[in-house]
């Protein structure tokens, strides 16, 4: 079972991207707008815990991952790693200890691998740049261990291959091996299986779950797929337009959702055998609004089937609806 101490904590994390104003707007004195990609998120991940971050495209889930891996700079809030404030840390040498412990798995494995590097160089890169090995023998040992742990056997066969010589599943395994090689304590997995064939998905997911079971690695699993999140995660956080609308244990969120958006997400999942016995809310209408024009009040109200007056004026705070289960909806109680 997961440890209780948090390894990572996000405190009202905020990422706003400024919108370039045209000359016309500047002359008219219109205020500069901002894309509120992430708009105040509180999230904690325990040691060895698997947390799924679920949301539609445009909900800001990838940006959250980029902030945690220090690829994007937050405009507000804090990023705490084991209680240490990492928000302002910058530069590759200053971040080296952090990089050693937090790694990332990318969605598009083909794009994430330099086409001119061999598999060995790709997996060895973190070990070299974080200075974790002293000599080539050690390097080779750790690379082959990482490849084997990611399910590439025999590892030696892959050393001198190039990414274009591998299948999609093998490429994703190489990306995973690269993240594993440094033995991190937290892995951010951004849609790690969405580009893969369904038949490969289960194997890759098994690799990720094994990591937690064997090495007590924590995992932030970013996905748009609620059933997948339920399958792999201990807890699920549902993200809508840059804000968490519901968070709770995987079973609670999946079988007892208390936010209309979560219900809609669940209903949108096709199921063999039809939709009998589903909650009785109509399917979601329309698109996610632009993060540059976030609706007033509850940000879900323009699409919500249950919306009423209060939703248009006041933004609901996270309301405790059960043990460890928060829902940001006026009707959640």
């Amino acid at each position, binding site marked *: 079972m997961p440890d209780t101490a948090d390894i990572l904590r996000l405190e009202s994390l905020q990422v706003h991207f400024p919108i370039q104003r045209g000359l016309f707007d500047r002359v008219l004195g219109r205020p500069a707008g901002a894309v509120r990609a992430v708009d105040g998120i509180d999230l904690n991940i325990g040691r060895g815990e698997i947390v799924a971050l679920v949301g539609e495209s445009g909900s800001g889930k990838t940006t959250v991952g*980029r902030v945690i*891996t*220090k*690829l994007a700079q937050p405009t507000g809030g804090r990023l705490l790693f084991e209680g240490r404030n990492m928000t302002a840390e910058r530069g*590759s*040498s200053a*971040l*080296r200890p952090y*990089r*050693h412990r937090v*790694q*990332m798995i*990318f969605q*598009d494995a083909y*794009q*994430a*691998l*330099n*086409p*001119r*590097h061999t598999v*060995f160089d790709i997996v060895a*890169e*973190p070990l070299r*740049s*974080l200075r974790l090995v002293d000599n*080539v*023998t050690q*390097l*080779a*040992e750790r*690379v*082959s*261990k990482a490849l*084997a*742990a990611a*399910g590439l*056997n*025999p*590892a*030696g066969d892959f*050393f*001198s291959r*190039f990414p*274009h*010589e591998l299948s999609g599943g093998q490429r994703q395994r190489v*990306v995973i091996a*690269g*993240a594993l090689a*440094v033995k991190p304590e937290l892995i951010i997995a951004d849609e790690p299986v969405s580009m893969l064939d369904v038949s490969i998905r289960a194997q890759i997911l098994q690799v990720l779950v094994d990591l937690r079971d064997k090495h007590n690695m924590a995992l932030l699993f970013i996905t748009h797929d609620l059933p997948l999140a339920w399958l792999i995660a201990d807890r699920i956080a549902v993200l809508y337009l840059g804000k968490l609308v519901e968070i709770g244990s995987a079973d609670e969120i999946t079988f007892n959702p208390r936010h209309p958006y979560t219900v809609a997400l669940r209903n949108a999942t096709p199921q063999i055998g039809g939709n009998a016995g589903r909650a009785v809310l109509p399917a979601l209408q329309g698109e996610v609004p632009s993060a540059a024009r976030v609706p007033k009040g509850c940000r879900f109200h323009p699409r919500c089937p249950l919306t009423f007056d209060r939703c248009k004026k006041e933004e609901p705070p996270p309301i405790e609806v059960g043990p460890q289960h928060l829902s940001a909806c006026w009707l959640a109680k």
Partner: protein
Amino acid sequence: MSESIVQYYPRSRTRAIKAFLGQFLGHGGARLGLLCLVFFVAVAAVPTFLVGPLQTAINATGDFLMPPSGEHLLGTDEVGRDVLNLVVHGARISLVIALLATVISLVVGTTIGMTAGYYGGRVDVWLMRLTDFFFVMPSFVLALVITPVVLEVMGRGGEILGFRPSLFVIIVVIGMTSWAFVARIVRSQTLSLKERTFIDRARVVGSSNSSIMVRHILPNLVPQIAANGALVVAGAIYVETSLSFLGLGDPLQPSWGTLLSLAQRAGAASAGAWWYLAAPGVCVLSVSLSFVLIGNALDDTFNPRRRVIP
């Protein structure tokens, strides 16, 4: 799962070079270009051994504007010098100018283009304004301004880094006026490369900016640099010809460009002395072509996706 630990032997340098040469020489064009270039380099290395000392109007051996014959394989010029002798001696000057100018141009262009593209922002703006400045600077005017100054300071007989001043000026001028084009191309390619996910990954696994540039961006720029390097060599030979034509070349060490302008001034074309124009012309053409062929083959070799997988 982890018992399959395999010994890894990093490829030794000799083996890597062997593998590279094997790939590279697999291209017919590369073999032809290399053969041609080796021939010219060999000629440039020992001109006196092949055709005797450089002929001048004083020690000319033939009649005026004689067509090719057994005695003068490529005919003679307007003062009776053997054209073969002139062309062979010109090879060294032309090749040295072209290669050194290209090296300057590629090193400066790649460094500036990659830095501007990678860091972006203010660095990009200032470096690109600098590039624009050199982009529009006409090489002739620059050479016209620099040459007399350098000659005044050094004197015609002096040497700069082992080169005669006028030669040195031509090399520097061609190098400085051709890098802007390389920088623009390298910058645009860098802009697209740095958005690729593998750069993000490199950052996440802890690589520093310099290591990302050297290990991730530069190798992906090699095709562009190699292909454009070949063009820069061809361009350098052309600019050298033009500069020599304007009288900025070194009269004591005629290059192919100098020969072409001498032929032009001697009225070789209207006099029907085709050998006088053709000899340096064909040399310029074959060297430029060799570089283009080699550039293409390098592109193929460095791009593993185009490799034939055995």
